[in-house]
């Protein structure tokens, strides 16, 4: 199968959906001629024009609000939020308005929009351009949250997101834009709420999200060499969450590590771990182990920044301890 970059995959998903449905439009900063600072959208304005690939002023709350109203009245905006760290600026329009429109109107109105943004540290961009803030929106009923882990997921999930009638937030890993993966030429969609078993295994389950799927896969590779069989699962969407798949794996291996790039405390690892602990408790040999990003603002200097996120080494290390029966604490 041909291989394309995550960036190209996103670009294709948008182009295909915009061709299919003329109510889809992209709105955000520097999305048109510039094609975003990550060059993800290059070429789209040439095909779809400036009414459907809309360069905005630097006004995130404003264009997010505009997207909500546009979505409520018959279009499908794809909001381009340049950095995931700017999600704080759009929280009101996203969480007080978009997320609640359907419910507050008793099902009469809806806000079918997508917020495309990113996450991920180790790009030496410091504390305001390196956050992974998906936990914030996952907490708000009415929002769906997708975390693609490769070009394949990025395309399939984005296409599903655009067709979904609910507001969806999709976080791409900004360090993966140039990573290639096999992506079919033919159209495909990835349904929400279906986890993907990236690698089957029997000794320990590694649940990874976004960039951490790669990290888990590398860890699994290392572990395999030592005779430890790790299963790697990518939930792909955290809202909805494919509990059944996670529980099945947990029951099979009896040992689980949840790896995520958001801050560990009060983040998504606690939720996933809790659901597994609750529903597979008597199958577990040890409590579900969590590995999130350190609970510190992301430091600029590389020597510190690299310490803040889980690595294949640290995941493998924990998996080894877990399998060998050592009691492990998250702290």
């Amino acid at each position: 199968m041909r291989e394309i970059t995550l960036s190209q995959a996103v670009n294709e998903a948008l182009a295909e959906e915009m061709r299919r449905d003329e109510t889809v439009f992209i709105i955000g900063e520097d999305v048109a001629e510039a094609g975003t600072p990550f060059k993800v959208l290059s070429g789209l304005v040439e095909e779809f024009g400036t009414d459907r690939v809309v360069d905005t002023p630097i006004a995130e709350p404003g264009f997010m609000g505009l997207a909500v109203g546009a979505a409520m009245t018959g279009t499908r905006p794809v909001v381009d939020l340049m950095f995931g760290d700017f999600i704080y600026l759009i929280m009101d329009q996203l969480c007080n308005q978009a997320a609640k429109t359907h419910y507050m109107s008793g099902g009469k109105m809806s806000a079918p929009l997508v917020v495309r943004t990113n996450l991920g540290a180790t790009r030496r961009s410091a504390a305001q351009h390196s956050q992974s803030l998906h936990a914030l929106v996952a907490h708000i009923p009415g929002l769906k949250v997708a975390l693609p882990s490769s070009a394949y997921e990025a395309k399939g999930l984005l296409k599903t997101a655009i067709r979904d009638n609910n507001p969806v937030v999709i976080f791409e890993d900004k360090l993966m834009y140039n990573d290639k993966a096999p992506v079919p030429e033919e159209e495909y969609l990835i349904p929400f709420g279906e986890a993907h078993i990236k690698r089957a295994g029997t000794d320990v389950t590694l649940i990874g999200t976004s960039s951490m799927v790669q990290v888990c896969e590398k860890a699994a590779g290392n572990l395999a060499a030592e005779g430890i069989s790790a299963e790697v699962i990518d939930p792909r969407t955290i809202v909805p969450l494919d509990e059944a798949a996670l529980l099945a794996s947990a029951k099979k291996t009896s040992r689980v590590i949840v790896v995520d790039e958001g801050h560990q405390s009060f983040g998504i690892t606690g939720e996933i771990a809790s659901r597994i602990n609750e529903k597979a408790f008597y199958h577990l040999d040890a409590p579900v182990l969590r590995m999130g990003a350190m609970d510190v603002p992301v430091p600029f200097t590389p020597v510190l920044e690299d310490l803040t996120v889980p690595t294949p080494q640290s995941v493998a290390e924990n998996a080894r301890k877990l399998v060998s029966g050592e009691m492990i604490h998250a702290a």
Partner: protein
Amino acid sequence: MSSAKTSSNAEDYLRMYRQMVRIRTFEDNANQLYLSAKMPGLTHMYSGEEAVAVGICEALRVTDKITSTHRGHGHCVAKGAEFKEMFCELLGKEEGYCRGKGGSMHIADQSNGNLGANAIVGGSMGIATGSAYTARLLGRDDVTVCFFGDGATAQGLMYEVMNMAALWKLPVIYACENNGYSEYTRTDEIAAGSIIARAEAFGIEAHQVDGQDVLAVNELAQKLVARARKGEGPFFIELMTYRYHGHHVGDINREYYRSKEEEREWKQNRDPIIKFRGWLVAQGVVSEGEIDAMNAEIERDAAAAVEYALNASYPDVSEVDMHVFTDVEHALSQPTA
């Protein structure tokens, strides 16, 4: 009162009058429901500001859109809503416009293009602008009116979306209902400079109008709506008006921020309904008797709707996790929670 038109407009005039009285009557009943502890929560009365909503909404088509505020009953009625579904909503009943899930602060009436009240001050400014964006993108010719209060002009969101509306010539009209107060504070104590000038600084044509004069409001609205429909928007209107009640129905002792004299002055000398009624009679459009009959009929309608709503049923408890997502019947019975 603006210059009289010929009585060939009689029908329009009477409909406007009727709508103003319907709003006042709705509010009187809502207030009563609160005072008699039959309504859950609090609500914000539109009484005194009727000429604003009616003058503007009478210039709109059903397909035109509005966004509304926490003080939203007036906009809802003016855009065509029915008493029955409105009272049901205020009482949290299943037959309410939002099945009781929204209540007063989120009442919406999609069938008439009312995209909803909003409990976030300024929260609907983006929505209105986006609605106008849809019209432009899909080549529809509808116009959107964004209602908001003087206090809401402090929200940065307004400047962000005015900038975009101006850049892209969107068919949206920002209608600032300047009733002089932001909750319990005089807005002039918390607003610097000029509201009109703030819109003009973005290159938006802005007008100020007497919000107690329904004909003046309507005349201006007709013109601006027609121009917005042709792509000459956006526009900004500041409507000088007054709310008769407290900030909400529970705001009874308010002399620390607003004098009784001031309230009396507006109610007695600037009431939009009294003024318009006097003018209609003076112009021979209608007789006092016909007006009294109309008022009485509206009161009966309202009473019947209240009665209906009081007896209507609440949504079934199973609805609690419905409508969280469009594609999931019950959000909490899904394994995906």
